[in-house]
């Protein structure tokens, strides 16, 4: 056990969690004995699922693999990653719902975990009784709850119904009450797993604000897992990206989100689409996109004032009368920002190769990474599926910072510069 620095509140060392695959016990003694007997005689386990590859039988997989992190007092740490990356496992370990198979961790103070909203609420009890019960489950004692009960009730916006059994609550009220309890915990460390996904937008914002305040004013530490990048951005000041149980990034929130969402073609200035690879996936027999590139460039970075010249090459899969193209532009969170439209741009016979050069004015976009997607349609098939969703997602481009008026544009102001306001009077 290594020493923890003074302002460090959570420290994990080689933290690992291994799950056994395939034969995690069958649940009945008879079958376990059967499996054990078969194994002894060197026979096929009668209880394994047929066709399970050998490596899965009795083999294991690491949900969390040698995680070493240190979290300091007052930090608001977001944890992101794809499904199965180990986010929830990490939170489960830290909140001591289950224990590590290897390694260790230590923490300072109390941890209040909210892996679910309203854990332990009892339908028959009133709101007030449930506040006490839920508070106690989360580690507060009676006097701590009593000191805060008025705050909790007013934060939950359920004053009128506080002495009614919660089974008569609407689901929204239930969530609000449950979250209010958690938001008023005295624990030094708070762990939340996607709990804000429920509740309406206004209440979500109120909760995020509350969590920020707690962290900033009272030096609470917050660990927050979410798939919603905008709440991560709003709440966190540090972000950890997990992939297959390993920490692949730890640091700045924007960088982390980029690291998580950014594909491998981030640096490319041209791309070849191998049709045999994507043909079956894409349910569009209009045309097959083969090549895209930025004309006359060896980088995908664009400076203010520069125009984007895009060249697209494809092969027709049918007679095309009038081809329409939409180039959708997304920001780094993959939120659509805007689109370029081009209508009636091409005519051609089936089997021919087509190509197109487009000039795109991207000057209104501010600094940052942008993702694109090309969607081809024709008047014959106006509702055709997009040419590609994943496979032929377009080239990525980056823009550098620019000044608007007298000051440099900040990313938090938005992605599109609309210009100066006109003074009428």
């Amino acid at each position: 056990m290594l020493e923890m620095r003074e302002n460090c509140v959570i420290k994990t060392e080689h933290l690992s969690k291994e799950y056994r695959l395939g034969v995690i016990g069958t649940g009945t003694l008879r079958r376990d004995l059967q499996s054990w007997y078969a194994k002894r005689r060197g026979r096929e386990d009668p209880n394994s699922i047929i066709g399970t590859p050998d490596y899965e039988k009795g083999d294991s997989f690491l949900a969390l693999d040698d995680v070493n992190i240190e979290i300091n007092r007052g930090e608001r740490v977001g944890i992101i990653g794809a499904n199965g990356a180990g986010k929830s496992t990490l939170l489960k370990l830290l909140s001591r719902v289950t224990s590590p198979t290897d390694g260790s961790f230590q923490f300072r103070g109390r941890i209040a975990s909210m892996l679910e909203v309203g854990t332990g609420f009892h339908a028959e009890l009133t709101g007030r009784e449930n506040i006490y019960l839920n508070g106690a489950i989360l580690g507060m004692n009676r006097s701590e709850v009593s000191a805060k009960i008025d705050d909790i009730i007013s934060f939950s916006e359920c004053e009128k119904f506080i002495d009614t059994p919660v089974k008569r609550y609407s689901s929204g009220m239930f969530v609000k009450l449950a979250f209010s309890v958690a938001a008023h915990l005295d624990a030094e460390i708070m762990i939340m797993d996607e709990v804000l996904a429920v509740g309406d937008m206004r209440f979500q914002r109120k909760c995020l604000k509350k969590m920020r305040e707690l962290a900033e004013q009272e030096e609470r530490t917050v660990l927050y897992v979410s798939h919603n990048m905008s709440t991560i951005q709003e709440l966190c000041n540090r972000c950890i990206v997990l992939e297959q149980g390993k920490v692949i990034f730890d640091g700045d929130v924007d960088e982390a989100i980029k690291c998580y969402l950014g594909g491998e073609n981030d640096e490319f200035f041209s791309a070849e689409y191998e049709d045999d690879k994507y043909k079956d996936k894409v349910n569009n027999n209009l045309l097959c996109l083969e090549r895209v590139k930025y004309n006359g460039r060896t980088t995908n970075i664009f400076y203010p004032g520069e125009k984007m010249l895009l060249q697209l090459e494809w092969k027709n899969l049918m007679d095309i009368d009038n081809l329409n193209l939409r180039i959708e532009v997304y920001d780094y969170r993959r939120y659509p920002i805007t689109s370029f439209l081009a209508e009636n741009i091409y005519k051609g016979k089936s089997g021919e190769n087509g190509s197109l050069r487009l000039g795109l004015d991207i000057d209104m976009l501010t600094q940052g990474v942008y993702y694109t997607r090309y969607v081809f349609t024709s008047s014959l098939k106006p509702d055709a599926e997009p040419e590609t969703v994943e496979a032929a997602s377009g080239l990525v481009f980056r823009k550098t910072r620019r000044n608007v008026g007298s000051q440099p544009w900040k990313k938090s102001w938005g992605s599109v510069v609309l210009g100066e306001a006109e003074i009428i009077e």
Partner: protein
Amino acid sequence: MIKFNTDFDSEVKLVNNDITYVSSKHKLFNVNLKEIWQYRDLILLFVKRDLTTSYKQTILGPLWILINPLLSTTVFTVIFGIIAGIPTDGMPQFLFYMSGNILWGFFSSCLNRGSGTFLGNVRLFGKVYFPRLVMPISGIIYNLVNFFLQTSVFVILVIVYAVIGANVHPNWLIALTPLLVLQTAMLGTGMGLIISSITTKYRDLNVLVGFGVSLLMYITPVVYPISQVPVNFRWLMLLNPVAPIVETYRCAFLGRGSFEWPFLLISLAVTAGLLFWGVVVFNKVEKNFIDTV
């Protein structure tokens, strides 16, 4: 040089600086009593929750706690006392059956609560940490409250019977009842914890428990006095750890029955052993049961 005194801050925040260390290595016997004590409010709230919710939306409410044993005692009296005609060593039949009934009820509900600890609380245990022993402990207290209320009625009936001159002789053994009650709770809970730990893997046991408990009742002198058992087998009977408790309890309030120190002490030792074993397996299972359940 001016020295600033930084200690004038009147509102000093109490920051909990205790370091908790969690690793993959487990100790065999690891009961953190201090931590359980910190969660005492939770224990009481669980008891309160169970008391207030178990009889919600019933007309008689908590009166059921008293009506239940009275009804089943009446059934026992009719079936075993009147129809089967099992002698009760001259003790008033109703009191005889009631004494066995409420003590057995206490034992079996402690066992049931204990054995349901893991499977009955999967949702809660899967989402939040608190010392898992909080659950069986609050179960014991809940059952104790019920048992205390039932015993009060029983004591009142004993006094009534004694006043009207029936064959009941409460005696000094009553001083032992706190020990007997504690022992019953520990025995039931200890067995419950063992069962609970095994059922996380083998659900079959759940079916067996219900059957096993009623079987155990019939090899315990609950519906018959031990004097009905052939003398040669009595010692075997009294090795059942519940048997001496029931006999001593009955002997204390009604004045008849076999009270023998050796068997009571053996029962006490078995209780301690089962409880220790129960806590050890419970400790082992609680770390990771959420992964296998």
